[in-house]
């Protein structure tokens, strides 16, 4: 009977996942779904773009997550005058004790496990692109030297969808590197009351429930989850249907979408589906898991055309149309 270890792994994964979510939710109120998807992205080794108006708890979420996971946390406030070296670090001249000088690399804030890139769209594209290598290869190159970043590595970027003046929209290549794009909505009335009550009592203390090696073990378990060919085919079909030139594309996609999702979207659907299944206590992926992660995995990968931009088409509506028809 070889199933016992697998069953225990499934149970352990679920228990750890719930523990993280429960602990983060002690400080973050009314954002359960955002918390769950953020943890899924962390366990998938992906990065998250958080979009929401100021004050809804984006930065608090990232800071709390770092506290709970016992990981190194750094915050970078993106501004128009921020330089790439301010992110990745730079070589500075040092003096030997016995005389003479040498260059020594001073790591930037990117050298952390959880990096909060606050208001990432306020930095120039040049600075934004400094994150590309770190996000994709988990390494940075300064001069002729490449420095590996510690695992787990997670970039959580935030942006404000309202104040677009003086911002630099993220390039498509960088958008595609975010595993999920999560919308942090305004909390409802009950959640707002709860926030006020907790503020009156002071910041809730959160426990460190997990560390880096445990997260890496969970990542390994997630990748072992089997996915049947029909379910994988569903993810592929969903991805292809986002392309306006695809035969299965619905009319709305053909009308409003300029470019569809990249292959990274299919990866995000499958891997996110695996973790979603494990978090639900299942050792297999179903089409429901794929559908559950479709919105955060696809919404930033649909590039709207001129008509879509003018009519302010919501990509979420297009994706829901896709799900309904696929």
């Amino acid at each position, binding site marked *: 009977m070889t199933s016992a270890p697998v069953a225990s792994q499934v149970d352990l994964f679920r228990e750890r996942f719930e523990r993280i979510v429960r602990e983060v939710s002690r400080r973050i109120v009314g954002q359960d779904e955002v918390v769950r998807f953020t943890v899924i992205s962390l366990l998938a080794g992906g990065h998250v773009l958080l979009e929401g108006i100021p004050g809804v708890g984006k930065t608090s979420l990232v800071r709390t997550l770092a506290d709970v996971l016992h990981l190194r946390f750094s915050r970078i406030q993106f501004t128009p005058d921020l330089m790439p070296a301010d992110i990745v670090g730079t070589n500075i001249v040092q003096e030997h004790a016995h005389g003479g000088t040498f260059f020594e690399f001073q790591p930037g804030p990117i050298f952390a496990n959880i990096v909060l890139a606050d208001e990432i769209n306020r930095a120039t594209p040049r600075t934004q692109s400094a994150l590309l290598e770190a996000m994709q290869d988990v390494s940075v190159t300064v001069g002729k030297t490449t420095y590996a970043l510690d695992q787990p590595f997670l970039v959580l970027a935030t942006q404000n969808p309202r104040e677009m003046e003086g911002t630099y929209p993220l390039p498509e290549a960088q958008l595609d590197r975010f595993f999920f794009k999560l919308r942090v909505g305004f909390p409802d009335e009950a959640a707002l009351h709860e926030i006020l009550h907790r503020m009156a009592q002071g910041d809730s203390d959160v426990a460190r429930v997990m560390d880096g090696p445990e997260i890496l073990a969970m990542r390994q378990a997630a990748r*072992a*989850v089997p996915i*049947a060919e029909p*379910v994988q085919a569903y993810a592929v079909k969903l991805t292809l249907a986002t392309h306006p030139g695809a035969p299965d594309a619905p009319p709305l996609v053909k009308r409003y979408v300029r470019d569809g999702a990249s292959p990274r979207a299919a990866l995000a659907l499958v891997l996110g589906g695996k973790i979603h299944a494990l978090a639900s206590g*299942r*050792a297999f992926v179903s*089409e429901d898991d794929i559908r559950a992660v479709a919105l955060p995995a696809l919404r930033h990968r649909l590039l709207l055309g001129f008509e879509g931009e003018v009519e302010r088409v919501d990509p979420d509506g297009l994706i829901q149309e896709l799900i309904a028809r696929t």
Partner: protein
Amino acid sequence: MRVLPRAAAVACAAAAGAFLLDRQRYLGLAVLGLSLLAAAVLAVLSRRVRHPSDRDVAGVDRAAALDGSLHSAHWFARHPAPPAGRHGDEEWIAFHVETAAARAAAVDWRAVYAEPFPARRGLAAVGLVLATAALSIAPSPRIAMPEWLAGQDADALIVVPSHLAGEVVEGMNALKAGQTPSREALTAVGRALEIARTDPRARRELDDLFAKAAAADPRWLDGAWNHDWDVNERPDWDEGMPALEWAYETAAARAALDDAARADEGTTEADTNGRDRQPGERGTELSRGSTSSKRPDSAILRPDARGETGTFTSFLFGRQQAQSDGGVAAGAPAAGQAASIAAALRREVVHARTDVGEPPRAPLARRPSGLGPSAVDPGVPPTGLRYDASHAARPPVVPEARRALVHDFFLRAADTGVEPRAAADRSPEGARR
């Protein structure tokens, strides 16, 4: 199996219908047998399909609310050895299949799907099968038909009136024997044929009567029966109704000719010999088959009142007109001419309306038929010629529905000069144009 009760119900209904109408008594059993055969074929085919399709499994998964576990595990079960690591760790796959099987086994499938063949429906199917068999074997139930049904369908089931049936059979027997039936029998056959022209059921019934009449006459069958039909003219009785219609029309024409001849003969002989012939004497002679009637054209050609051989044209237009053609009726017709006329008439029956007792108001010209030039061409009589109407006889009755068509298509008044288009196209002049 689920459709078996319905098939049995259909078979039982068919058997009940056949039982009441006393028709096709084994129809119910036939339907039942076909249904069982189809069920057996489907059962064999369903056993051959061992693996349900992926779509079917997905449907079962949804119906049982298994969250996709059955759907996914079914695929892994059908693909037991995927490439290593391609779809997941083998331990995880085994665990997944095991848990999915356990979960599917725990499902109360009776709550998901209704029982396909409950005992109640099985009993109903057995009862219907037994009823079908009983209805197919039981004696005729026509006496048990409801009065309203029996009364309503009495005419429909027996469309030839019963009081005509005996005379119709008598007339048929006479016609088959080549004899002229009695006037009453001929009238009965004609009336029955009129009914049969508009009622297919009457036509079938008459056909049956006609077939039985043939079988009921052993003298005809053994060839001993003396008949007037010429070898070339005798209809093919196997044709059924067309042969009967032809025989009836010929016999009617013969009877009319006999009447005219009898009347003429009576007048002439009374004048010359001072005595009348006995009524029916002439007809008796003909029916026995006189010397002339044994000739090939005997069915058409009859000695007229003056002892000369008549022709069909004389029958239609009177002897003087026929003689004025200068050939056709001047002497004995060429051998086979009358047979040709008869053959042409079989293909194309022409009924000319003639005013008996008066001179023809307009000369009638027979057009060439569509099959070629007509063998009968009486021509146009000289203007001012008066006809002896005493030799004219009323032709066979033309059905009302066909009267106008025949008149307009085949005949025209010479003085009108109006030529129908179809006739003009068929005329030799039109053909040459």
